[in-house]
């Protein structure tokens, strides 16, 4: 869990990272250049308007001359029209850059995710990935697009303003130059502080969110354990912290603008004082004084914009790091062969052999060590054994959800790393212990097995696995919406639908991993019959706890700590009177014992 908590504040500016981000923005470069040009023009207008004022005062009001007022008005109108176009272009272009970048990043990340193997998903919580593709990417698009706006505009306004003020009066210009570092210092300092505190607020906010989530998910448990007061006390503690940090953050941000404005009023004051004296001395006109007052008042804006941008880049850096960590992932399973028409036509009705296969999820804890197994085409085998002996791992290896650390797995006579992954997966039907359904109707969920199946084919598949009966009893039958992750159905019902889905897919290799554990006995028996019917003509691998459900398979493998300790058909194994016999008798005896017990009672 710890590795997935929001990374701590990283104060070093990572140039390389931003450079790679800019490279990701390459498809948008035309728009970015256009946007920069627009921003320069925008800055030009902002720097010019006080000059218009100055002209009006010095050349019309003071000499009391009317002529030129129409011209000035027209110039003003021209500026307004120009600004209208520029503002429109600025927002539209920035929006294009932002949404375009977001979309590209999402697409690249999602494709990368599809290439990652299961070991990645075992380590990485879904919520973490969703946050990367959601808010983190939005953040990056936002920072890049609007960052360019702020940066180009801010720098251009500063340059234009400094150019203008130095041309007008270098003495007064010095006042403005002196204020620059003060405003810059306050801006950077406060923006950083605000960012840090809002980061804390967000952290508490997400804690509160998950606490509320737990409160609802766990409502039944909370009620039956009478935990209401204890939960509330814990929540209030969290809530108090949230309050404290929110107020702290809000106070810092409430202080920022007033402080900057106080400093810039210092500029105004100094300009009025020194500029006023200059006017009295006749060194400058009223217009110049007024222009200076305007410049002094506007000065804080470009600086605080740029400061905010840098602060935001600091915070977005964490988002960028996380997104790039996702982009730079190396898939552990690489599909080297492309899935073409030739492969599409090829059947996987082939023997599967595991040769000297070793595998470990974690180094030093091997699940399999030089494991060997041959499965004939069309053979059905059952894997039995205690929890944690590697039954599901074996299945995952055969499906190439994981690849062996050493040794090889052959499909036919080919190492399966030399065939397209897609081909393997399109020939496998895999029903999990806890099946996953998608939000949507029953029909859609079954059809997931074969996307071009007709409604009738879907219903036929449901009939084969005996799911039809309960589906007919649902409020809208096949159109019943199964809810988030299928939660409106019971586990047993989900298993039936997952089974129907697989039957529809008509795979060469069928894998049932505890697939009928939650179905009630009577239905299970029907499903068992269906399983054996469906298995005809396919290779089948069944993982089961209940030994009575697998007697009809061709071969049973009894696994213990990553090794096959017994193998054979049910009658063979029973005759051998080994561990399987013991296990079977144990299960059987228990029921016999239960009969005895009940007779005593």
């Amino acid at each position, binding site marked *: 869990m710890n590795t997935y908590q929001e990374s701590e504040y990283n104060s070093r500016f990572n140039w390389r990272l931003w450079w790679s981000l800019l490279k990701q923005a390459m498809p948008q470069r035309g728009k970015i250049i256009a946007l920069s040009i627009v921003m320069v023009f925008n800055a030009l207008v902002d720097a010019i308007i006080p000059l218009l004022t100055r002209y009006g005062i010095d050349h019309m009001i003071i000499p009391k001359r009317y002529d030129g007022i129409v011209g000035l008005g027209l110039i003003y109108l021209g500026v307004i*029209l120009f600004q209208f176009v520029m503002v429109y272009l600025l927002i539209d272009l920035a929006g294009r850059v932002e949404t375009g970048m977001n979309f590209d990043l999402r697409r690249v990340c*999602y494709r990368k995710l599809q290439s990652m193997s299961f070991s990645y998903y075992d380590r990485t*919580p879904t919520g973490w990935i969703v946050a990367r593709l959601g808010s983190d990417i939005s953040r990056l698009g936002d920072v890049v697009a609007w960052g360019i706006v702020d940066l180009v505009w801010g720098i251009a306004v500063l340059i234009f303003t400094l150019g203008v003020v130095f041309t007008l009066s270098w003495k007064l210009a010095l006042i403005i130059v002196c204020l620059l570092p003060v405003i810059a210092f306050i801006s950077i300092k406060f923006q950083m502080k605000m960012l840090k505190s809002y980061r804390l607020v967000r952290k508490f906010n997400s804690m509160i969110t998950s606490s509320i989530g737990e409160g609802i998910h766990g409502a039944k448990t909370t*009620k039956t354990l009478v935990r209401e007061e204890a939960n509330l006390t814990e929540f209030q503690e969290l809530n108090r912290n949230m309050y404290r940090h929110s107020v702290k953050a809000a106070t810092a941000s409430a202080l920022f603008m007033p402080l900057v404005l106080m400093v810039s009023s210092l500029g105004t004051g100094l300009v009025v004082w020194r500029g006023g004296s200059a006017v009295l001395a006749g060194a400058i006109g009223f217009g110049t004084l007024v222009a200076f007052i305007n410049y002094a008042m506007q000065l804080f804006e470009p600086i605080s914009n740029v400061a905010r941008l840098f602060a935001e880049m600091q915070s977005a850096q964490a988002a960028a790091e996380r997104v790039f960590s996702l982009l730079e992932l190396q898939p552990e399973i690489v599909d080297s062969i492309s899935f073409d028409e030739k492969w599409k036509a090829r059947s996987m009705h082939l023997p599967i052999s595991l040769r000297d296969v070793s595998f470990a999820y974690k180094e030093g804890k091997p699940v399999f060590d030089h494991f060997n197994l041959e499965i004939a085409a069309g053979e059905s085998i059952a894997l039995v054994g205690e929890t944690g002996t590697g039954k599901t791992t074996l299945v995952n290896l055969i499906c190439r959800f994981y690849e062996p650390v050493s040794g090889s797995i052959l499909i036919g006579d080919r190492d399966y790393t030399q065939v397209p992954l897609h081909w393997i997966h399109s020939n496998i039907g895999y029903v999990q212990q806890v099946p996953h359904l998608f939000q949507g109707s029953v029909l859609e969920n079954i059809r*997931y097995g074969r996307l071009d199946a007709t409604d009738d084919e879907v219903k036929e598949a449901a009939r084969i696995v005996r799911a039809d009966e309960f589906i007919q009893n649902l409020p809208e039958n096949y159109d019943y919406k199964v809810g988030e992750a299928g939660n409106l159905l019971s586990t047993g019902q989900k298993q039936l639908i997952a089974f129907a889905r697989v039957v529809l897919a008509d795979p060469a290799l069928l894998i049932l991993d505890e697939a009928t554990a939650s179905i009630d006995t009577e239905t299970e028996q029907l499903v068992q019959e269906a399983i054996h019917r469906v298995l005809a003509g396919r290779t089948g691998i069944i993982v089961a706890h209940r030994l009575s459900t697998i007697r009809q398979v061709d071969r049973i493998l009894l696994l213990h700590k990553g090794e096959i300790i017994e193998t054979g058909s049910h009658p063979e194994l029973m005759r051998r009177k080994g561990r399987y016999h013991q296990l079977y008798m144990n299960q059987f005896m228990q029921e016999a014992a239960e009969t005895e017990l009940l007779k005593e*009672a």
Partner: protein
Amino acid sequence: MSSFRFILTYMKRLKLKYLLAILCIIIAACFSFTTPLIIRFTVDNVLGKKPIDLPLGIDGSFLGDGFVSFVRANLWLAALAIVLISVIAHSFTFLRGKISAQVSEELARRLRTALYDHIQRLPYAWHSKVQTGDIIQRCTSDVDTIRRFVGLQLVQLGRGIFMSLLIIPIMLSMNVRMTLISTVVVPIIFVYAYVFFRQVRKRFQAADEAEGYMTTVLEESLNGIRVVRAFAREDFEVNRFESAADDYRAKCRKLITILAYYWASSDALCLLQIASVFIFGIGWTIRGNLSLGTLLAFSTYIGMLLWPIREMGRILTDLGRASVSIGRLREILDTPTEEMQGSHCILPGTRLKGRIEFRKLSFAYDPANPILKGVDLNIAAGETIAILGATGSGKSTLVNLIPRLFDNYSGKILIDGIELEAYNRQELRRQIGIVLQEPFLYSRSIADNIGIAVPGIERERIEEVARESALYESVSEFEQGFDTVIGERGITLSGGQRQRTAISRALAHDPAILILDDALSAVDSETEQEIQRNLLRRKGRATTIIITHRLTGVSVADRIVVLEHGRIAQMGSHSELIEQPGVYRRIWNIQHQLELEAI
């Protein structure tokens, strides 16, 4: 209006503070209007040598010519005044910000606490119906909307109103014609902002929905990654996600284009207002109707007025959102909570005997679809009962009624001879341990989870119950043993381990009634047997109800009840039931006979 009253009930002892914030707004506004007047005074009277005329009809003669020439000689005084006034005005702005943040954050805190508390006390029927995401959103986003409304938007509205109320008289007193010119576009800008943001709200919503849909698609495909892979549906999922992401992009783009038009035109309107003040001002100044200082004051005031008023237009469209949010919170808070009290008290430290009687018990979640149809069943204190039945036969519903998770049943349920409704819910629940098929574990350590209902439980006791539920060994294999914290959605524990943790938790508080609702479905058969042996050993300690699909589950039971379509189809000991034709014998034959054959 009722929304307003709702907010007020959560503002106890905050109202005065809020008024203080409003006072700060007024003071700050008053002071910030003074700066342009000082500049006007400096330009007109000090630098321009005109006679003093103060706005609002204040007689300026008391200042006298001596004062003006003193300032002229010491111009730094004007500078000092500008800085001082700015310091005062902005200090009050800061205070306003701080106080309103305190008030609104406290309000948010109160709302969150109230919601959390209320949600916990709502009947379980409510929890089983709602969408978790929706409720979380109400507790976070909607609370935040209200917080921003009180802490920012209302304050900005107030500021806009006070600004206009103060600026316009000052401007009028300086020059009426100029005031008219200065304010002619302002109302248009206000109305434009208001109308625009009202119109565009739907597009914001559309973009939000597109984003939500994209997230759902993403979440689903990640959660179902095994299914996606197993069916080789990567391309299908990539297309699905990309079309969702593309739709989101398109909606955003559309929104941004409209916003671009708006901001461009609104900016142009503002500039038009500034330009007209400037051009007309120049004309009148040349004619002598206006002084240069007054013109400057007007152009500063216009800047002060324009932006807040444009913001007001936008905020007004947001008011609707706040009242919608309030409505959504009230929907939760107005739902009646469970009635906790009961006439019958279970004294602390006493233990129920655990005799349970169901009499003609019927129940339906929805009247059209009855689940239980007249169940009659007596369970003796200390007896162990197994309930068998197909999915949907009403097994879980029956046991959920015992801890009063649902009301509105007809018929009677008696525990120790006393009507269920007479018990205090919480006191009753403390006597019951219930384990679910898909148990919920809190995201804390395993030890905490086991001991969660027993304050001050000792470690030995935790380990003891863990042994009883065959959990001890698996947990000991974890690096941190019982201190292992259960991660996101309990990802570090397998289904069987979760079930066994939940069993330990139920055993830890030694309940008088123990209910296992298909609680061993994910446990392998050897472990299942071990747990059953342990359950057998503590038989009689608690009235035990075991719901199961498997006959192995009934081995510890004194009596077996077979439910079928909400009715008791069969009841009796194993040997009795095996003699009767019926569901039980059928199940027995399926599970038992087949195994006999196989040997």
